């Protein structure tokens, strides 16, 4: 693969040329904005009526104000709603991945089920939330059906109840992501050397033992990857609760997420506070990004040997 020394010099410039657009776009649309965001987080800079106040340097005042306000509460809301969606998501996905890849089960129509369970992931989250809002509103179809079936006497006000709202957000997140996770985990399970499963079967392992002793340890890297990327997704939770509660995080801001809070500051043009919220989110995201980087690298090392044919077998397995 090593090229002649003379060639390296003459072709290097194309390397720079080809990667330039990416880095220029990144610089303009993400890096400079990020630096500005961090910079203004140390300023008093907001709009009051038609007047712009600041920017006046205020040190860490914005951060102090943040923690005196309800930042902790919103962080808690975000975590709670993420957990409500993530726990069933990972459990169901593991179960489905194990079933789909178990040759003894011979499940028919795998391709159909995969197509169906992945579909909600492509749905516009804001439209999906609007749909749920219409279906679960006080006199919406869910309530009128429950009443006509005699299950409840008067409408259950899902969106006025703390756990009703959080539960709906969690349910939507679950529905949108469990298909995606299932497909990722399946690909990981199918990447395990089949002789391991054969050996387990010869040794008389039950399906349960095979799952806990062979499958789970072997797919640990991808499980960690799924966990961290899902946490980053949870950190970004916005569309669903924003539309469902009309940006208010009702009832009593118990479904207000961190990005909704950021969005409120951006809309009211309080750039100092928006900056401070962003910086904290950036620090959390940076830690998670590092974690993803290391899991992907560890993953690559273990797979380097069969890197060449990494794509082909999986593709066939999926189509088959």
């Amino acid at each position, binding site marked *: 693969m090593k*090229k002649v020394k003379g060639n390296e010099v003459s072709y290097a410039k194309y*390397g720079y040329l080809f990667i330039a657009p990416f880095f220029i776009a990144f610089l303009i649309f993400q890096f400079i904005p990020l630096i500005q965001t961090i910079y203004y987080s140390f300023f008093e800079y907001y709009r009051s009526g038609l007047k712009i106040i600041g920017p006046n340097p205020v040190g860490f005042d914005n951060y102090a104000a943040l923690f005196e306000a309800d930042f902790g509460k919103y962080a808690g809301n975000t975590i709670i709603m993420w957990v409500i969606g993530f726990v069933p998501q990972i459990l169901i996905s593991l179960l489905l991945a194990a079933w789909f890849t178990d040759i003894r089960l011979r499940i028919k129509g795998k391709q159909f089920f995969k197509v169906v369970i992945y579909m909600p992931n492509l749905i516009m989250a804001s439209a999906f939330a609007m749909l749920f809002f219409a279906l679960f509103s006080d006199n919406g179809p869910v309530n009128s059906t429950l009443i006509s079936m005699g299950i409840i006497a008067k409408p259950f006000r899902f969106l006025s109840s703390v756990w009703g709202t959080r539960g709906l957000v969690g349910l939507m997140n679950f529905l949108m992501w469990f298909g995606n996770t299932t497909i990722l985990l399946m690909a990981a399970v199918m990447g395990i050397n089949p002789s391991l499963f054969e050996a387990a079967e010869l040794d008389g392992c039950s399906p349960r033992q095979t799952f806990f002793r062979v499958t789970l340890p072997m797919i640990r890297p991808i499980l960690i990857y799924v966990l961290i990327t899902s946490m980053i997704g949870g950190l970004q939770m916005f569309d669903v609760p924003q539309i469902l509660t009309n940006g208010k995080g009702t009832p009593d801001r118990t479904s207000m997420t961190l990005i909704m809070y950021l969005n409120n500051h951006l809309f009211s043009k309080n750039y100092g506070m928006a900056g401070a919220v962003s910086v904290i989110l950036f620090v959390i995201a940076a830690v998670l990004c*590092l974690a993803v980087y290391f899991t992907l690298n560890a993953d690559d090392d273990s797979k380097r040997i069969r890197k060449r044919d990494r794509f082909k077998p999986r593709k066939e397995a999926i189509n088959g």
Partner: protein
Amino acid sequence: MDKKPSHARTVIAYIVLIILTFLCLFFFYILIVNATRSHPQIQKGFSFIPGHSFMKNLRSVLNDANIPVISGIKNSLIVSSLSAILATYFSALTAYGLYAYDFKLKKPAFVFIMLILVMPTQVSAMGFINLITKMGMLNTLYPLFLPSIAAPAVFYFMYSYMQSSLPLELVEAARIDGSSEFHTFNRVVIPIMKPALAVQAIFAFVSSWNNYFIPALVISDNSKKTLPILIAALRSADFLKFDMGKVYMLITIAIVPIIIVYIALSKYIVAGVALGGVKE
């Protein structure tokens, strides 16, 4: 003896799968049925039988001056198509630059992109809005697709794909034939990358089509709004005054085109999810 437990497990597996399938399809089925029913019918509750008000609902959505649906579809199509083209082409170009050439900053550039692979764009939104205001791009569609040139997740997919399916000997051969580097990329590399480009184009298109956070901050002009902003506007309007048939119809318009494309290309999309791992 050996067959029996397996048989019971198969039955349980099918029951769970059918429940999940029902959950996934039920809401969208109700959505489409309700889009064909009139307001009073919808108020009565669920029905599995479509109504006759499809055209009436469609007409009342299209004729509502407060919800510019036609221009919304147009704007969404423009932004999503351009995002998909920019993201796939420039990601492939970047991946090729790092895959096929040796240069001093190759390793740092690669590590850097891998580090920002899953960085949420929301964290720099404040500076982004500030910057595009200064650049005079506020309330235009440009800030919605230009940033797609730098799409780390798409890059990673392209790079992995090149590792598995683009032998460098091919590039050498093109060189010997006198093809220029840029020409080689467009005429030799791009055709080989077609399957990867197609899959990532779909993902980039869909994520841009569904994007709400940044567009809602950038666009305030009614004629430039994309579909998710229109949906949000519907939510913040006084809801009870609305004809529910109209509401369901607008949601249908936003969702159904994606579902149709998905069903047509589902084989490739599902395979793509398994390959990529990384997705925004």
